[in-house]
């Protein structure tokens, strides 16, 4: 008999990797499929194609015609979603445990039989462009897009997951179909089920549903290697607006690199241990962290933080802030570099490290409350490195010393390795006055 909270791992002959984790705390189960494809696998002219393919896989199969996937999951009391990131495309269904089979059937079916109807491709083109245009309304999206494009010269991490609008206008049905056939097979996927399950029964069911799906040839490797940055890069975005925004990014190594844990600890010390929950309440712990004290408490920024998302290939350690009304980007930037110098020059105290450990312990415990969260974290970690890191996460963090933190700050958070972005509202930010109309209906 398998103990609760242990992960059972196996692989089907067609290459599908499967992770099952029984958790019997509530009568629910979460089913996830992770494809090892994202914007990282996109070439110039085809940016945004993974995200578009993700949408198309909601457009139905002969067994689950268009609209049926979402409707059936909801009808069975479940929630679902799909999302595309740099390194992966993931779908999940979280369902009452006795309905889990529906999720498995949907994922097996759309892996093999998604239709990609040419008319649907065209109507989805408008939706995809509309999604991008909604994001373009946000100054921070525009700034981040410029920043990433500037930080990466050779590697596909330089374009957004949503893709360039020009590419979205000209990607064809055939492009999407080829992309689907290349990357969305069992040989390039991880299936994860966490929840109130009987492992043996689910194991057998997965065998039935997924084993008949043929493996494709191995997908092309991403060979681009980002050359080392040799000098600061800067971008200034000017647009009508009402606030000034700051972002900066430093190149850091891939998730499997030994410095990964020290970078996570650096992130926690600067901005609090990140909440590990998803779609639920979060427990922020940033107000006693260094960046908040240095930038928000001093009234330079109304909001400030940093982020580090481990990735398959070398990625970015990101900083962001919104300038307080009446203050300047110059002042804010200088204060941020001072704060970074402080963590490079002085060892953090043992007490501060212990605090970060305790925060991480709490965030981890909160994350375990939801089977959806657990499956999410197993998947995220397996995509960029190995799922086994989920269970050793807290122990791994404890191994990071003050000297490690100082060393990674000194190694990566340096001027020659940074890209800086400013969003400056143009002076005539006055929009046309609102037009208000009351129509009497007679």
């Amino acid at each position, binding site marked *: 008999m398998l103990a609760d909270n242990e992960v059972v791992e196996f692989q089907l002959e067609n290459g599908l990797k499967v992770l099952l984790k029984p958790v019997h705390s509530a009568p629910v189960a979460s089913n996830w499929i992770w494809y090892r494809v994202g914007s990282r696998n996109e070439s110039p002219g085809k940016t945004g194609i993974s995200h578009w393919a993700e949408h198309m896989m909601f457009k139905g199969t002969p067994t689950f015609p268009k609209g049926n996937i979402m409707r059936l999951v909801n009808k069975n009391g479940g929630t679902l979603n799909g999302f595309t990131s740099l390194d992966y495309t993931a779908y999940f269904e979280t369902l009452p445990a006795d309905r889990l089979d529906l999720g498995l059937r949907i994922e097996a079916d759309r892996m093999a039989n998604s239709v990609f109807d040419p008319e649907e491709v065209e109507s989805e083109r408008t939706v995809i*462009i509309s999604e991008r245009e*909604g994001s373009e309304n946000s100054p921070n999206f525009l700034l981040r897009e410029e920043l990433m494009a500037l930080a990466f010269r050779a590697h596909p991490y330089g374009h957004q997951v949503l893709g360039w609008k020009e590419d979205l206008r000209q990607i064809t049905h055939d492009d999407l179909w080829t992309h689907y056939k290349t990357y969305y097979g069992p040989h390039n996927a991880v299936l994860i089920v966490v929840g109130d399950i009987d492992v043996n029964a689910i194991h057998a069911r997965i065998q039935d549903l997924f084993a008949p799906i043929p493996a494709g040839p191995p997908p092309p490797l991403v060979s681009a290697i980002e050359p080392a940055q040799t000098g600061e890069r800067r971008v200034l975005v000017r647009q009508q607006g009402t606030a000034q925004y700051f972002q900066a990014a430093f190149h850091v190594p891939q998730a499997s690199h030994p410095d990964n844990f020290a970078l996570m600890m650096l992130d926690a010390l600067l901005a609090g241990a990140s909440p590990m929950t998803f779609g639920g309440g979060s427990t922020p712990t940033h107000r006693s962290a260094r960046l908040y004290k240095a930038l928000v408490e001093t009234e330079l920024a109304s909001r400030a933080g940093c982020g580090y998302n481990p990735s398959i290939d070398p990625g970015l350690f990101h900083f962001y802030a919104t300038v307080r*009304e009446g203050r300047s980007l110059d002042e804010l930037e200088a204060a941020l570099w001072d704060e970074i110098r402080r963590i490079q020059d002085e060892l953090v105290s043992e007490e501060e490290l212990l605090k970060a450990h305790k*925060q*991480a312990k709490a965030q981890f415990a909160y994350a375990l409350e939801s089977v959806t969260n657990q499956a999410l974290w197993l998947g995220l970690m397996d995509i960029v490195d190995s799922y086994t890191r989920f269970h050793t996460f807290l122990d791994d963090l404890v191994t990071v010393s003050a000297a490690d933190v100082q060393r990674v700050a000194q190694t990566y958070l340096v001027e020659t390795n940074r890209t800086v972005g400013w969003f400056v509202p143009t002076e005539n930010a006055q929009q046309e006055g609102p037009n208000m109309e009351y129509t009497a209906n007679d």
Partner: protein
Amino acid sequence: MTDQTLNAPIGPHTIRRFALSNGIKLIVHENHVSPSAVVRGHLWAGAINDPPEKMGQSSFTAYTVRRGTTTRSFQEINELVESVGASVFVNGGRHLINFGGKSLAEDFDLLVDVLSDVLLNPNFPQDEVDKARGQIITSLKELENNTRGLASREFRGLLYTLDHPYGRPSDGTLESVPLIRRDDLERFYRAHYRPDGATIVVVGDIQGDVVRDTLERAIGGWQPSGDVPGFEVPETHPLTERRRYVRTMTNKTQADIVLGTVGPARAAAEYYAARLGDVIFGRLGLMGRLGETVRDQQGLAYYAHSGLEAGLGRGPWSVRAGVNPANVDQAIESILVEIARLRDEPVTDQELEDGQDYLTGNLPLQLETNEGIASTLLHMELHQLGEDYITRFPYLMRAITKEQIQAAAQKYLDPEHYALAIVGPYEEQG
């Protein structure tokens, strides 16, 4: 079709009720599957208590109570709470001050200590008030450049007018917030923060009796005014005209629109029918009928969904959509067609069943985390739904008929009389 009888994990057999000596209602549900504890509660005050010239006062007060007490500074509070990975919040809503927090169960005493301190002993340090005001003003400035946020704000103003507390932005405006002084916050606090009628819910890896003792020590001595807040729902009137607001922002690529009417209150007889109707209209699957026509068939929008904000009073029943500027008129037309269809024809048997299945089947997911349980229990208490509500809910939903949904749509939705806000790169024709 058979009703699935929930093997209710939460009900009279798990809920423990206590009264603190000052009358605060305490509701506890023990859940030992995770080592955390969650607190949720409310006091009876909110933006409806703000005078029109002091819009945002209640929200500003809530934002500031946790920024310093008679014995602890803002930084000390943050350090204390965050050192153990806990959190404490106080938010000013429209009718209620919502508060709460989360911690590991081993730190529950600390959580309660800090939460009660910020509720009972805030001292509104002048420098913290000034910092908070600056942050609020910056976020209000950011809102001026946020199409989605502006469309929502202007929609409310249009629907209820600024003369009505539901029409005024509860966070205040760039005109009102700079005028709110420290004394205003303290005055609001003294007048409205009191334990009369308050409820606290605790869920997690804790023992009911211990929770009661801990809270009694921390907050039981808070003196009630003896004046149980007589909550009066401000009167609302359905529109008798079309109201349209357009803000042209040429620097944007997408227009956000909000279109809607005054919906039912949570206590309305038609609430459950309206809720089911809303699910069919713009939520189920990929945003219900709206998603199917506006997004999927016509490809007009990335998102187009509906929402029912039925609370103590009559909140809006509205549709939100993000649309390419060239498609705005067509999208509005499609939305109005869908509103008319929900009124003119009964929903199909299939839609009714799908909606019922979703709302009843989804309950276990909502009750998975301690936050989910605590929010549900607080909602049940606020609206006096009874401890067996979770068991009864599927029956309530299954009893709704197609005719009731149609009647609710006819009563509350209206394709002729509505408020519509459009914000983005769109210009009014003619």
